[in-house]
């Protein structure tokens, strides 16, 4: 294992690399087509380099544990708005997720519908490309159109264009209060319609999820409101009246935090079977989910994100047919990930652009080769 302690050492390691490398942060997301190669760990590129709460910005080493970063933010009543999910439970992995891993996979949780994805909060990167060139892009300010936006290109590139050494984020205040409207017994179609109505309201819903089988086995739809206490009280009541479907309003901070962690981290997903992540136009969701023939389903993002556990080894895309959106195989046996495309295959002209970018940023093909298919 190679573990550079500085960006300079990282650049030297990449220039000296003789063969393929598996880029690893905390090693908690073994996703993608399996990669053979020596492990290059970013864990030693760790630490908060700058945190300016009055400017809502934080700059950290890519190997910084997410937990350390979130604790520093919480001490100032701030947070990463995109609510990064933790894959450890559902993938059965151990270790400490790093912020670099979050960025490389663009890992975003339920608040993505209101506050954007990881790529929307990320404002700067430093990375080393496959030829060993050290590149910076973006910076530490939240409005920046100076040159091309390689920040977004790096986010979600799964280590295939460069190895991140430093990342900078726009952060947001953490509201002091939270209320969740819980509606039981809705069909998938009715739940998606209710979530659409809630998200079209002025009440700033920051989470909209539906479990066809909740903790007690019955369907439950969850709508989250965050803000100052007077505000969440008013909005939760107004939202319940608007939807006209009844439901309970849960205000306990610990209970509601646990409830959204359950959604975010897929705590209800059974351990067996393959886990797929399907991104769709929300109103198409129930129809697509029905075609999936899943053992377990979770709708997040107002129905626009469907998590499905299906029997192992099945090519879910063949079952779904053509649809507006894409499916990613998140958890499956190594042989299945070798056989099926983990990421949605791209149309030829788009695939040509992606291949062109990889060839330029990683001319020797040493950075997580093939992980995205």
């Amino acid at each position: 294992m190679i573990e550079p302690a500085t960006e300079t050492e990282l650049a030297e390691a990449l220039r000296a690399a003789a063969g393929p490398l598996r880029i690893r942060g905390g090693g908690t997301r073994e996703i993608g087509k399996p990669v053979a190669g020596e492990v290059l760990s970013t864990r030693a590129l760790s630490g908060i380099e700058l945190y300016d709460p009055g400017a809502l910005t934080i700059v950290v080493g890519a190997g910084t544990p997410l937990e350390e970063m979130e604790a520093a933010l919480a001490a100032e009543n701030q947070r990463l708005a995109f609510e990064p999910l933790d894959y450890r439970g559902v993938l059965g992995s151990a270790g400490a997720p790093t912020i670099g891993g979050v960025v490389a996979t663009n890992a975003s949780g339920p608040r993505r519908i209101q506050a954007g994805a990881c790529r929307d909060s990320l404002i700067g990167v430093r990375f080393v490309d496959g030829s060993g060139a050290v590149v910076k892009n973006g910076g530490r300010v939240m409005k920046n159109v100076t040159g091309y936006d390689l920040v977004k290109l790096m986010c979600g590139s799964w280590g295939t264009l460069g190895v991140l050494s430093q990342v900078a984020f726009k952060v947001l205040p953490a509201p002091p209060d939270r209320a969740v409207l819980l509606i039981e017994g809705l069909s998938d179609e009715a739940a998606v319609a209710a979530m659409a109505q809630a998200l079209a309201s002025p009440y700033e819903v920051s989470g909209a999820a539906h479990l066809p089988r909740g903790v007690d086995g019955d369907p439950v739809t969850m709508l989250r409101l965050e803000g100052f206490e007077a505000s969440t009280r008013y909005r939760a009541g107004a939202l319940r009246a608007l939807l006209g479907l009844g439901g309970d309003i849960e205000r306990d901070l610990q209970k509601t935090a646990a409830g959204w962690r359950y959604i975010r981290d897929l705590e209800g997903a059974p351990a067996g079977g393959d886990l797929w992540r399907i991104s769709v136009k929300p109103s198409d969701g129930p129809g697509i989910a029905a075609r999936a023939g899943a053992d377990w389903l979770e709708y997040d993002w107002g129905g626009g994100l469907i998590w499905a556990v299906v029997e192992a080894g099945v090519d879910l895309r063949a079952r779904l047919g053509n649809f507006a959106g894409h499916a990613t195989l998140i958890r499956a046996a190594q042989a299945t990930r070798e056989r099926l495309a983990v990421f949605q295959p791209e149309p030829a002209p788009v695939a040509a652009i992606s291949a062109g970018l990889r060839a330029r940023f990683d001319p020797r093909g040493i950075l997580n080769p093939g992980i995205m298919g």
Partner: protein
Amino acid sequence: MEMPVPDPEILNRKAAIVARLQKVLPEGAVIHEPTETRAYECDALTAYRCPPLCAVLPGSTEEVAAVLKICHQEGVPVVPRGSGTSLAGGALPTADSVILGVARLNDVLETDYDNRFIRVQTGRTNLSVTGAVEEEGFFYAPDPSSQLACAIAGNIAMNSGGAHCLKYGVTTNNLMGVTMVQMDGTVVEIGGAYLDAPGLDLLGVICGSEGQLGVVTEATLRILPKPEGARPILIGFNSNEVAGACVSDIIRAGVLPVAIEFMDRPCIEATEDFAKAGYPMCEALLIVEVEGSQAEIDEQLKLISAIARRHDPVELRESKSDEESARIWLGRKSAFGAMGQINDYMCLDGTIPVSSLPHVLRRIGEMSKEYGLDVANVFHAGDGNMHPLILFDANKPGDLELCEAFGAEILRLCVEVGGCLTGEHGVGIEKRDLMFDQFSGEDLEAQMKVKDVFDPAWLLNPAKVFPLAVSQARRPGQIAAQ
């Protein structure tokens, strides 16, 4: 401003190129008479002008593809143009280039309130996107000052922002998908009516690429429900430093205003003379706007007032009605017009960390004395995006050059404190030659590699963004000269 020397070989073939373009476009969609091409000689950076070889106005994605295919075969540079409101010279042509205007592509293709998006052709103006959905209670969030005129195509090219991006983000955060034509005529679809396009985030790098990677003809845009209400508070201070500290304290208190606007004394004085909004005469003025129900607005404004009072404000005016809100915004909205009344001005667009505000304003004041040119500051303080306006006299020989040198020094200062050259206007030609102040050769090389992939012949808007000396080797047959 250096621009590439036009290729004489292309100029000689003008008639043949025009004839080929006329074959694939409807009558009147190819503008080639010298008296008519002048309409396309510049954008809103009017100091630099050059009529193009010709201008084309295709009416569909297929026509755009046909035009690009011909230009690709002929080796003719293409400069895409939205509404021509760029302040950075993003749509400035060269004499050997074809202007590709999207003005005829202005249809709404689909509105979907359940899934909260609108799909439009990109020649449509920013404000008319909101216009198409507001009856249903929705709006399109990015709101550049030019929103009445500017096109979505230009917004995507420059990743435009606006006054409300502290809460709602800029174009890239509200763009879900595009139909884009590459320089060789290939049409690609990226993203769509769902969140987070699969594979590499190509959408993210296309947005803000200043028309250098492709011509975006259709866009899927996120629309949002309108808030129940919004009201501002106006706060006056006796020093820029105190106003800057107040901005930081508001943000740290956990309030997220939808906008925090800042004006300094020279700007307040000019706008008062012009708009008579009744602003207090003080060193610095903040306009902070919050959203929500009436009760929610009252609560947030109460909190902001309490924070402001700790900084000894000379004025604190909370809006209680739509009329009072309009009066508070009147001066801010007329600031640019007011400055234009008293002088020629150059508008800068650097961004700085909010915490550096007092230092940067002090340095700008010192530089203003050194250069002998006045500066007025008006900007989005919440996100650190500054718009210093340098006043000069265009009729006085040497004044424009002096102003440009002063502007460059302010932008270098922005970079020095951890900020950037441009927050929302783009690089264009205006900041092209300052790129080395922010980036290393390797940083720029990485960006140019992206262009190599999308447009290997470097025909799309080739003389923009990158210093000409740096991009010269990639731009075939063109030699940079005075």
